[in-house]
Each structure stands twice: as C-alpha cells, then as structure tokens.
C-alpha cells in the first residue's frame, strides 16, 4: 500500500499543478485581456449611462478601426520578432497621395486608390529591403522610414490639407468608394468597422493558415530553428513588411474617407497605439507568439479606456497619463503571468531545463 501512495501522490500533485498553470495561463493570456476589457466596460457602464449605448459603441468602433488595421500588420511583424514604426507615416502618405492624385491631378478614382496602395507596398518593400539586404535592425530601419515617409507626405501635399480648394478639380474631394467605406454605415454598422474586421480576418488567416505565418512564428520563436529548417528568413521578413505596408495604406485611405480629407500629419502617433495594442493583446515584443485575436482585444481596451475617460470628463492630459500607465500595468501583469507559467511547466525560454518527466 505504501508504494501505491508514493506512486500516486506526485502524480496527483503534478496534475493539480498542471491544471493550475493551465488556468493561470488562460486567465492571464488572451483570457486576461478579455477580462480586463470586460472589467473596463462594466466599470464605465456603472459609472455613466452614456457609455454603453449603441451610438457610443459605434463611435468607439469607428474611431479605433484605423489603428486596428495598423495593429493587424504590426502583429504579424512583431510575431516575427520585428517592429514597424513606420505604419502611421505610411498611412498618412497613402491617404495623401491618393487624395492628391484624385483631387489635384484629376486621376480616375481606381488609379488614385491603386496609387495609395502602391505607396504602402513601396514603403513596406523599402523597409524589407533595408532590413534584410542592408542588415539594418528593424527598429532603426523603420524609425528612419517613420521620419522620411512623413517628409514625403509633406512634400506631396505641400503641407496643406487635401483637397486644397485652390487646386482641386471641380467637385473633386476624395474618391467615392473610399468616402463610402470610411464614413457610411449599412444596417447600423459603420463600413469602416467592417473593413477593419476584414483586415483582422485576413491577418489571422495569414498567421495561422499560411506558410508565411508559420515562418513568422518560427523566425520569432527560434531563428536558428527556422534557418536549419530551410525557412527563407529574409524573404519571409520582406513579405511581412510588405503586408504591413499594404495594411497601413488601407488604414490611411480609410482615415481619409472618414475625415473626407487627407493631410500629411494625420494618424500621428498611431504607430505607438498599434504597438501598444499588440502588446496589451498578449503578443510579446521578442516575437514568436501571440496573434491577431489578442491584438483586437488590445485595441478595444485602449479605445474603451480613452472613450470612457473622456465621457467621464477626465481632462485630456490626464487621459494620456492613465492610458500610458495602463499599458505598462497590463504588460507587467502579463510578464508576471508568464514567469508563473514558466515556473510551472518548464517553459522553453530562455533555456530549456532538463526535464525528467516520463510522459504527460
């Protein structure tokens, strides 16, 4: 009998421990972000009747659709252990170029839209080239394009809002399709939200269902494993930055549609918002993990927080302070959860411990 108890005890304990870790992991990971979002919604709901109304919900969703689109591309980049600081500038350039081509140069609508997309493609390809061929670190390369692309947008628009009435053709503001998608609603759902959802779905699909997605996780999680497995690291990274650039272009055009105008300084600071959304959503900055689902929760947390605070009449300056601190707090919580999970299950990072367990 004594043998049976000694046999059983560790197994039972092991089972309990594993169960606890699993619950903690789920609650602290994406589940944790969902819990924080629900708490925020509940808190603001109790605090003010103006928060959880159909109008205000639409308002938050519409307002955060553009950063959400940027965050989708950012997620793929960060999963592959990169970072794209240039997304907001790229959005501004794409929107501006499209606007200028349509309103000032009199280009036909499809061509103007195509030019906007091409600008996003070009910036993404340039980032990819500088990072993979010139071997400039991702952070520095995209910091450079962050500034340079903003400059190009200023050059293209002469620093003036588009359309500029002195130069715009008769009745030419922004392309009709872009204005519709950016500002109109169907059955009460703003189309810009549908566009953001479609982008999120696309990003989720790329990450979880394509070779490129697998490559992103492998490169971010264990670059050497990716290399010896024959994954073309440089080529994959190049295309990941192109996708990020293209999504930034879509975001910029949607923003132009929503504002019915473009300017070179729009989307200012949104690159940080997109990075914050990714991190708050549970994707670690060192790559290899996370996903678009978490990022969407992350952007909602950021949006709900800002919206709720301003409904409550918290001064804008204080909102910034609270916003920043919440981001740090959420990530600190996530780090704590991660350490707990690693202690519990013998995580793979930073160094694989020798584990004598026979079978799970």
């Amino acid at each position, binding site marked *: 009998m004594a043998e049976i108890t000694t046999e059983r005890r560790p197994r039972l304990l092991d089972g309990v421990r594993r169960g606890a870790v699993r619950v903690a992991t789920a609650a602290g990971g994406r589940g944790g972000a969902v819990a924080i979002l629900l708490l925020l919604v509940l808190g603001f709901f109790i605090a003010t009747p103006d928060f959880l109304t159909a109008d205000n919900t639409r308002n938050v969703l519409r307002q955060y659709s553009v950063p959400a689109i940027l965050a989708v591309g950012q997620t793929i980049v960060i999963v592959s252990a990169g970072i794209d600081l240039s997304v907001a500038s790229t959005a501004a350039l794409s929107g501006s170029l499209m606007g200028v081509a349509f309103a000032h140069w009199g280009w036909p609508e499809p061509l103007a839209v195509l030019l906007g997309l091409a600008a996003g493609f070009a910036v993404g390809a340039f980032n990819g080239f500088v990072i993979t061929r010139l071997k400039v670190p991702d952070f520095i390369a995209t910091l450079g394009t962050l500034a340079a692309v903003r400059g190009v947008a200023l050059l293209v628009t002469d620093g003036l809002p588009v359309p500029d009435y002195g130069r715009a053709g008769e009745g030419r503001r922004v392309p009709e399709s872009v204005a519709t998608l950016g500002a109109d609603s169907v059955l009460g759902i703003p189309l810009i939200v549908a566009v953001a959802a479609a982008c999120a779905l696309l990003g989720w699909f790329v990450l979880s*269902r*394509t*070779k490129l997605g*697998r490559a992103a996780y492998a490169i971010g999680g*264990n670059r050497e494993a990716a290399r*010896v497995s024959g994954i073309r690291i440089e080529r994959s990274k190049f295309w990941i930055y192109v996708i990020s650039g293209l999504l930034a272009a879509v975001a910029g055009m949607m923003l132009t549609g929503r504002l019915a105008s473009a300017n070179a300084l729009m989307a200012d600071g949104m690159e940080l918002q997109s990075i914050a959304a990714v991190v708050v959503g549970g994707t670690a900055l060192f790559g290899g993990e996370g996903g678009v689902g978490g990022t969407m929760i992350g952007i909602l947390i950021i949006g709900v927080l800002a919206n709720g605070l301003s409904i409550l009449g918290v001064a804008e300056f204080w909102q910034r302070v609270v916003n920043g601190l919440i981001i740090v707090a959420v990530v600190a919580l996530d780090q704590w959860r991660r350490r707990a999970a690693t202690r519990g299950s*013998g995580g*793979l990072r930073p160094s694989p411990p020798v584990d004598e*367990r026979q079978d*799970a």
Partner: protein
Amino acid sequence: MSEPLLEASGITKSFAGVRALRGADFAVHPGEVAALVGDNGAGKSTLVKILSGTLAPDGGEIRFEGRQVAVPNPVAARELGIETVYQDLALAPELDPAANLFLGRELVRPGLLGKLGFLDKAAMRRRTNKAFADLGIGLQDTGAMVANLSGGQRQSVAVSRAATWVSKVVFMDEPTAALGVVQSAHVRDLIRRVRDSGIAVVLISHNMPEVMELADRIEVLRLGVRVARYQAADTTMEQVIAAMTGALGDEEVA
C-alpha cells in the same frame, strides 16, 4: 564492408585562429550506427555541423554515395537525404508538434491556394499522428505548443521529425540528453529501427554505456583529428576512452 555512404576526409575548420578541425576524417555506411565520440573540444559538433550544412568547412572533401559534394546549407543536406537532430532541438516554441514536424516543408492545399501558401493543416496533423504512432511516441495533446511540452516530449518531437524525413543519413547530437530512463530506451529502440531500415545513423554522445550499446562502429575524434576507429563488438569502453583522452597514439583501425 560496403562502400561508405558519407565520407569526409581532411576536413579543416578554424574559428578566429583556433583550429577546431585539423584534417578530420569520418565515414558512415548504410544500415549502421556509427558513434562519433571525443572529449569536449575534440571537434565533434563542428564536424557534424559541417556535414549537415550549418557550417562551411575551410578545407577537405565530402563524398556522398561516391561523389564529391558540397553541403552549403541545411537544405542542401536535406536534399541529399541527410537529417539532423540538433542538440538544442531546433524547434519553434509557439507552434504545435505537427507544425514543427513540417517546419520549412509544410504541406499546402492543391491548386492556386497552395501556390499562395495556404496550409493543409488536416493532412499535416494526420501524418504527424501517424508518425508518432509508428515511432511509439505517445503525445496525448498534439495541439499543445511545443513550449508547453516536457523536455522529453520536445526531444521526441525533434527525433521523430528527423526520423520521418530521413532517407539516407541521420545525425543525432546527444539525442537522449534530456530524457528519462523510459524515454531514452524508446529513442534507442527508435535508433535501431531506423538503422535496420537501411539508414545510416551517426550518434554523437557523451554517454559511453549508450555508445557501447548502440553503436556498430565507433570513430574517435581528438583535438580535431580522427585518432581511432573501432568495431564496437571488438572493443571495450576502456579502449575507446583511452583513445579519447590521448592514451593512444596514431590512428588505429580495428
């Protein structure tokens, strides 16, 4: 004895002036387990990295099936039918075992979707389950991320990946280092089965009893050159260790 399947001669490699390999030789034949042993710093890992395409040699010759070949990268090795179980396992932590088994050679959907890189996850999952079953690896939760598996399970994933894809030679760098008693026995069985199917197995191990048990032949590396070769059946552990530590002089072919 048959012609060597893979034969390296006079391989040299220096790192910042330190000569890790000083004209090393090595050979492995089909259907045998050849152990590559040596003290720390003897050059075992460097030699394996060169033969599996992760490191370029400074000099020397590699012959594969009688032809001189270059192995400039791991993919080239793979195309020759060479697989490697790396000491650090080379797994992607946030992907599941099936994704790791197919890492870098994912199955894609037929037609246009496949051209765009759309994965056929169901087929990969099916083939992974079959591979694990064939190799006697019991993984209850094949959907879990590798990061959440035990050290032994991770090693099982790495070993079964190599065993699944190998067609000619498999290098196993310390394949039982992180394993408990039962799983080590499993991997040893697996190595024998792979060998019995006609594949050449190169075993790198510090565990001398394991080497004596598994190996058909033993090649000893010391200070970057091969100092001895033995038929495992005709030698003793003491002899092998003597060669490793330099108690023996010139190359001795048993």
